[in-house]
């Protein structure tokens, strides 16, 4: 009897308890129960990248040549970058990025060629060091929403910048689409100086950018993305040491408007290819109120070989009209004028190649080593060779 009663009670308890067990099971099988609590902090990425730029060419803004121009635009840059990304729990991501540029520039160093020894950028050809520190904090504010705030500071000889950014990103349609909205602000505070290099005083510039982006999965192997950016620039928009040849064979200072509004829109396609390869295509349109219209197309192909080696090839073509005040021989009565070859009408092409090796380690993530080489050439004969080397660990 006692055994039968016990069996009956057990059966009743099982029937009544089943919903509770089911309910408890739903709770018990959340991410934390299955995967365990997330670590307090975990490193996601550590990497360094060294890039060398070797530029040759001639531009009428440079004083490193005859007075009527053009002057040398020879430039060498050695750039070191470091990046550290760490996750704190499930919701916080910290990113620290430090780029350092070591620059030698014939153009900036030549401003004392015909004049007194300059006060600023006086050691540009010897070595001008530019350094920056940026920090970003990403906060997951829900299953589909992430906010990212950034702050940074840039320093180089007689030039100081403060950088701020804020980005909102939201996943839509079960992560098939992503919408992002961001704003970036740069405040530049720098020396203004006369044509001969003597210090005139301090001046400033503000650059405010608003960006909106949208990406959408089209298939299990295709992603398309759209982006639009609007930038307002106010203040001294010249570097103040560029010069412009005159019709009489002299040189005068570059004069640019203190307002510039810029628009750029792009569309890109990312396609997985069945032979372990990926193709990326991009088109960008640009227009601003200095009458520059530009079109850029990019293509990039990455191919994996033997599991651990990835080869890459890229090509880019860019064409632009010049700014409304571009000239290589100005009349002194001109209110605005520039001879900066970067602001003139030009076409440019860039060809690149890269190789990356990935080596999984037992306890420290995946070690990667990357080498790349690009060559950039313009219709005005400016050429840049770029070699880059990166290494790091992805966890």
């Amino acid at each position, binding site marked *: 009897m006692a055994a039968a009663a016990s069996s009956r009670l057990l059966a009743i308890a099982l029937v009544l308890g089943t919903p509770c067990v089911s309910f408890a099971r739903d709770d018990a099988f959340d991410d934390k129960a299955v995967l365990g609590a997330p670590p307090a902090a975990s490193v996601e990425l550590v*990497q360094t990248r060294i890039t060398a*730029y070797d530029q040759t060419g001639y531009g009428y803004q440079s004083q490193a040549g005859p007075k009527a121009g053009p002057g040398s635009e020879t430039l060498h840059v050695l*750039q070191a*970058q470091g990046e550290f990304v760490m996750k704190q729990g499930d919701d916080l991501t910290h990113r620290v*990025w430090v780029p350092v540029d070591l620059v030698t520039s014939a153009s900036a160093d030549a401003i004392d060629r015909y004049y007194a020894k300059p006060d600023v950028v006086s050691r540009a050809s010897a070595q001008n060091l*530019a350094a920056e520190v940026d920090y970003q904090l990403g906060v997951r504010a829900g299953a589909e929403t992430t906010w990212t705030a950034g702050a940074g500071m840039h320093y*180089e000889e007689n*030039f100081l910048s403060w950088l701020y950014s804020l980005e909102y990103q939201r996943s839509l349609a*079960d992560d*098939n*689409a992503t*919408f*992002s909205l961001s704003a970036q602000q740069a405040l*530049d505070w*720098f020396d203004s100086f006369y044509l001969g290099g003597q210090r005139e005083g301090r001046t400033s*510039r*503000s*650059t405010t*950018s608003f*960006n909106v*982006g*949208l990406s*959408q999965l089209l*298939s*299990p192997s295709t*992603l398309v993305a*759209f*982006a*639009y*950016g609007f930038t307002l*620039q106010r203040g001294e928009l010249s*570097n103040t040491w560029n010069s412009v040849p005159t019709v009489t064979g002299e040189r005068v200072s570059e004069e640019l408007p203190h307002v510039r509004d*810029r628009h*750029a829109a*792009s569309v890109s396609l*990312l396609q*997985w290819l069945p032979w372990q*390869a*990926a193709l990326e295509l991009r088109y*960008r349109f*640009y227009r*601003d*109120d200095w009458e*520059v219209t*530009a079109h850029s197309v990019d293509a*990039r192909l990455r191919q994996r070989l033997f599991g651990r080696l*990835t080869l890459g090839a890229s090509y880019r073509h*860019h064409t*632009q009209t010049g700014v409304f005040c571009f000239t290589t021989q100005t009349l002194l009565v001109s209110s605005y004028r520039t001879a900066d070859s*970067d*602001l003139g009408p*030009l076409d*440019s092409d860039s060809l690149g190649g890269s190789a990356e090796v990935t080596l999984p380690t037992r306890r420290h993530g995946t070690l990667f080593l990357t080498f790349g080489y*690009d060559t*950039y050439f313009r219709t005005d004969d*400016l050429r*840049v060779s*770029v070699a*880059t080397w*990166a290494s790091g660990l992805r966890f």
Partner: protein
Amino acid sequence: MSRVAVVLARALLLLAGLGLGVALGGCAVVPQNRRAHFADPLLRDSDDALDGHRKRKLYTTREAAAGGDGKRAGGGCSCQ
């Protein structure tokens, strides 16, 4: 209306249309269990931040047409 304003208005109209299309929820075309390619480093690493920075530096300091990539278009260094 200036030509820049016209370009801006068209771009905003385009993005508004795209946003509306996504908001209507007709774009959930790929279920989660069919997105393996997008977790592959071949696609994921196409936006390496340091590689992107050195390329942007090459182009934005030598051309008059920066922007449209979600980043700052100008300022922040004496070469821009």
